[in-house]
């Protein structure tokens, strides 16, 4: 098993873990943060698989615009606090 395959397997495990914890949180803001982590790791995954076009699109849309729209939506509605 080469180092490249080890990197791909580690990234897959991290992505699945962050997706699971993003739907496991009850707090909406923490859930958005976990979704941003999954978007970051997905961009790194696309980059390692030699698709820089898709990585740039994911960086622009996933890292900035999606999180911005979700936080604006949370701000204009009511957030369910954890306590």
């Amino acid at each position, binding site marked *: 098993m080469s180092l490249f395959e080890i990197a791909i397997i580690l990234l897959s495990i991290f992505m699945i873990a962050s997706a699971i914890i993003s739907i496991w949180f009850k707090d909406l803001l923490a859930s958005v943060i976990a979704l941003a982590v999954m978007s970051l790791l997905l961009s790194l995954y696309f980059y390692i698989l030699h698709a*820089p*076009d898709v990585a*740039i*699109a994911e960086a*622009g*849309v996933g890292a*900035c*615009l999606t999180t*911005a*729209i979700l936080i*604006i*939506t949370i*701000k*204009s509605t009511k957030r369910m606090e954890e306590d």
Partner: protein
Amino acid sequence: MNGDEEKMTVIVQTIAALLFPITLIFSFYVIMHGHLTPGGGFQGGAIGASAIVLLIVAYGVRNIEKRMKEENLSIFESLGGLIFVVVSIFGIFLATAFLANFLVGKAIFGQIPAWGEAPLNSGGVLPILNIAVGMKVIGGLSAVVMLLALITKEGER
């Protein structure tokens, strides 16, 4: 009603004013070199929209909306779509079909590059279509974020 309470601190405003032109220039670079390097119309448009989102978060959406009306952004976006369709229809008359690449092999944009070399004026109609899609995405995504941010009420933490 001067909107001073919507701005963030002086540090954030200064850094945003310094980094906004750099991000916009990088967005234009990604759009213009779409047929040579990774990237293209959609990617560069998303980067440019993110630059406008940075201004919105640093200065407050109502201060930006006075300078940059959302009607103007909508007109910008529709202009991009119009350029796309008109260039595609030219393909019917000057070449064989809709969306045909009628400029390749000609003098202006149509230089065919050798393998590995890359002049900027190659690619036929691909740079024009890239610029059209870039205008569309910049106008559209920033207009969506601006309109969604305009309807937020007084938030209470």
